[in-house]
């Protein structure tokens, strides 16, 4: 009897183990199928975008295309030569605003985070809580006041109004603060003070190099955010020479896109979307490398 038991017990265990393995395999297969479906859903819009911007407008109207055409260069040329769309200016405007804004956002958020992290002064906690609270307020609720402010001070069609607010960015401040807390040793600051470095010098020569990885990541997020920004610019910019890419897209959607050259529209959307995707896919690798090496050093 004891012999039988000795034989029987392992088989039950094995059976259970085998069942578990089978169910895990089934589970895994289901998960993969869903993941692949979601991937297709995510990539399909981009795929159609790229396929259609390489076909001519009549070709696009004729029927659906599963594969790339030969019209890419022609669409590109036609779009930039199109008199109705100030595209070249639009691209340059978008790049200018996004670059300047991202730089200001990252620099001043780091400075603000530095101020609340390093120094002990009265009201510091209140200020921290205050910035955390305004992070939640949507910019749209003050939009009316901003528009009236701009009309009052003749600031419409002026890039200053799009650029200067970048200095006060609670969200970026928040990330910078978190990063400073995790990497900045006070000893370094103290040592620099003993060496006679000025406080702003400490920020420039010591803090900024240490938080470079965070600066890079936040720069990309700020750049993308500004590149995509539509709500505020659309209320404050009317001059066609000053329009950014989202404003050009909005103008196009409002002026019945049915009559417009389809190849050119897809090309415009490609120009608006694909650079960001490329930046996301390529540059994040370098940033992450920085980030991990920075973490080891810190």
């Amino acid at each position: 009897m004891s012999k039988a038991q000795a034989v029987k017990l392992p088989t039950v265990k094995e059976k259970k183990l085998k069942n578990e393995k089978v169910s895990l395999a089934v589970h895994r297969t289901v998960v993969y199928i869903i993941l692949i479906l979601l991937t297709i859903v995510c990539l399909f819009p981009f795929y159609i975008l790229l396929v259609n911007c390489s076909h001519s407008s009549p070709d696009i109207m004729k029927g659906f295309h599963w594969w790339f055409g030969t019209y890419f260069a022609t669409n590109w040329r036609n779009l930039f030569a199109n008199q109705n769309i100030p595209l070249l200016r639009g691209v340059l405007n978008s790049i200018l605003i996004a670059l300047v804004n991202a730089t200001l956002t990252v620099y001043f958020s780091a400075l603000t985070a530095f101020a609340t992290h390093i120094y002990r002064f009265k009201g510091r906690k209140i200020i921290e809580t205050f910035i955390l609270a305004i992070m939640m307020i949507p910019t749209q609720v003050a939009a009316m006041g901003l528009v009236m402010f701009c009309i009052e001070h003749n600031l419409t069609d002026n890039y200053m109004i799009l650029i200067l607010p970048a200095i006060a960015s609670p969200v970026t401040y928040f990330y910078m603060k978190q990063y400073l807390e995790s990497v900045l040793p006070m000893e370094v600051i103290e040592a620099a003070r003993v060496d006679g470095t000025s406080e702003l010098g400490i920020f420039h020569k010591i803090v900024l190099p240490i938080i470079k990885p965070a600066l890079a990541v936040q720069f990309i997020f700020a750049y993308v955010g500004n590149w995509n920004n539509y709500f505020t610019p659309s209320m404050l910019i009317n001059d066609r020479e000053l329009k950014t890419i989202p404003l050009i897209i909005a103008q196009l959607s409002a002026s019945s896109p049915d009559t417009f050259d389809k190849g050119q529209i897809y090309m415009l959307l490609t120009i608006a979307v694909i650079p960001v995707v490329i930046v996301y896919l390529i540059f994040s690798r370098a940033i992450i490398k920085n980030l991990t090496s920075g973490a080891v050093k810190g």
Partner: protein
Amino acid sequence: MENQEKNMTPPENNENIKDVLVEGLEEEQVDDNFANLNWFGQMLWKVKEKFTGVKANKKRHKMVSYGKYGYIFLIPFFVIFAVFSFYPLIQTIVFSFTEYYYGQGGLIQVGPNPNGFANYAEVLSDSYTWKYFGNTMLIWICGFIPQIIISLLLAIWFTDARLKLKMGGFFKAVMYMPNLVMASAFGMLFLMLFSLTGPVNQILGSLGLSPIKFAESAGWTRGIIAFINWLMWFGNTTILLMSGIMGIDESIFESARLDGSSGTKTFWHITFPLLLPIFVYVLITSLIGGIQLFDVAQIYTASKGGPDQSAMTIMMYLYSLITSSKNYGVAGAVSVLLFLLTGVLSIIIFKVMIPTNNVIKQEARARKARMRWLKDAQVSEPINEGGNNHE
């Protein structure tokens, strides 16, 4: 920082410095002298000084004080915030209590004349306001429900060590990508895809089906906008939930498994209750984001709001009040109501996440998860190699 000044003698090692620092901070907190008084108290002291000649105990101020640099470095942020956010907000609030609009096609300026709560009464009794708000909420819910279900499943799968998913980095990279894409470009792209002669109808045609007039149907218009919203945000929600799951102590899962708890049982009795604060956080931040829905709907419906204005969101309404009808009084009232609504929702976040530190921790965790996500996206290796798993 001021206190550390008296410990200027260089200590032998780092640990000493740390002790000194901690000591300094503690002293600062219990120190009750002039520097710790508020502005009013300091003023009283100064008045007393003038009359009695008795000096206040300004011990800390005699040393080199670094505290002032804190204020100096905060100036840019607060000046810009005051001019471009705070002042406009105050103006918005002030004009919400006035009659102020441009009549006859913007030719005649009426007001601003104070009219109390008349704008609020008008906005709240106006059936259009409620219709637009209803549209916004409907579109948000239609996007949010599939989003939370799919994101929760993905978060569980991505953090499940037993599954050992391959290519996790690739899947994550793809799913987060739509979040970075220009919302207005997405709106325009879907407007093209779902136009009467667009690719979707072409595919239907090649399958022998008759074309659907997507633009003329309220359901389709709302549904497509909700779909775009879902597409743009489910990756982000997955990250948030993943960070929540990874924050749960692994040993809890382990002991549950040793006790023979099944997968679903573990989820409902352990994962879900522990995840609840993050769940609420996700729900409310998504709701605040949903209230702000503008770009996609504006471009997709060519600023018209779709058939019978069925996809006109509350932000689109506000936008048209500010830009085309120039009714600053009513626009101000709508702005203030939205401000109050988002304010209440934010307070709920803070209350739920008590102690408040949790909000900060949650943000920090989300940030770390995002970084890890991006890292995985590059390396394309099994997701759980970092050791944040339930095993």
